[in-house]
């Protein structure tokens, strides 16, 4: 299954003309879109697990204070459908995030960016919808991006309150463009992402997330299917997660 997905991705990527690509679907991009650029992002996330399914609508609003410094707010609203029980919905936990570009190395049609990330989540969620906890993500986002491909990584440590164990998170992504670049923008990009986490109790979760992205002018539409590769058994195992969303340059 995994090797088939990788093969499909390589065939798709290798068989077509490559040009520039967009930001990764599930990872935090290391760039900030510059002082003049900002994008509103919203996506729906459908999660299917052993004990039921859930749908979360996420809205992220970033604001650039300078070329190198971005702050923003992420709000979530969830619909939970447990197997054999009544479904319910409500506000989920909210997150404030800060991103500061530490390293910028620009070359012709290529850039390397490294940013420091802080994400602070607050227990704004309704009871039953979200756990009552504060969590603080401290980490980095890095990317070596050229007009031919992009390599991205997010690494970080999550401090959690209320007896929830801390988590080490790691993400890797490669992005390949399938259309030649034009201005105004018209792009079709593919991404293959690995999303992992390891908590202090030794629970390791690793998922593979192939995704596609279409960009036309100021509009971006993207989707990504996340399939678990490693996860602890007996803890409401995830079957898959699907996200479908859009970003609009403002």
């Amino acid at each position, binding site marked *: 299954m995994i090797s088939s997905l990788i093969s499909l991705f390589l065939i798709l990527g290798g068989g077509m003309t490559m*040009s*520039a690509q*967009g*930001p990764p679907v599930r990872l935090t991009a290391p760039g900030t*879109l510059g002082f003049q650029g900002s994008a509103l992002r919203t996506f729906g996330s459908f999660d299917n697990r052993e004990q039921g399914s859930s749908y979360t609508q996420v809205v992220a609003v970033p604001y650039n204070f300078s070329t190198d410094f971005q702050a923003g707010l992420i709000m979530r609203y969830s619909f939970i459908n447990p197997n054999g029980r009544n479904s319910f919905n409500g506000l989920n936990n909210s997150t404030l995030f800060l991103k500061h570009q530490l390293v910028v190395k620009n070359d*012709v049609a*290529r850039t390397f960016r490294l940013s420091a990330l802080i994400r602070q989540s607050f227990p704004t969620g309704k009871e039953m919808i979200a756990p009552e906890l504060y969590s603080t993500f401290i980490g980095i986002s890095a990317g070596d991006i050229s007009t031919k491909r992009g390599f991205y990584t997010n690494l970080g440590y999550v401090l959690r309150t209320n007896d929830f164990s801390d988590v080490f998170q790691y993400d890797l992504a490669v992005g390949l463009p399938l259309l030649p*670049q034009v201005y105004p923008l018209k792009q079709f990009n593919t991404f293959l992402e690995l999303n992992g986490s390891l908590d202090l109790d030794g629970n390791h979760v690793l998922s593979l997330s192939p995704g596609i992205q279409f960009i036309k002018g100021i509009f971006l539409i993207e989707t990504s299917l996340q399939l678990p590769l490693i996860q602890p058994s007996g803890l409401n195992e995830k079957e898959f997660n699907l996200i479908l969303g859009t970003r609009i340059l403002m």
Partner: protein
Amino acid sequence: MKLKRTLLMTILLLIGGNITMKAQQLLLDASFVKMEIKGMACPFCAGGMGKSFEAMENVQKVDMAFDHGLAFLTVNKQNVPTKEELERIVKKAGFNVGEILYSEEPFEIPVRSKKKKKKKNKGT
């Protein structure tokens, strides 16, 4: 019927002629700028910069050749943006500016690699 057709043809010719004249006038009123921009690897990430160029009153048209790290502006001849103005926009977007060239003639925009290959094949 014949009269109608002649009338229609005349109107079309007049409109066509007017559009051509306006286009020629725009070209006569235009100057051209070519900029080297380093770091433009993700066009979506360069969107803010493109938007800022387009928002300038004296800019008529923006084009970019991402693979070559080049941006091309068609600007009003009477109000050409200064190097400092352009550099400020590029730096604010998080990129570095290389050479900025001005010309009264349009610059040749590099063709994409796919078209280049086709042309080469035709030649051989």
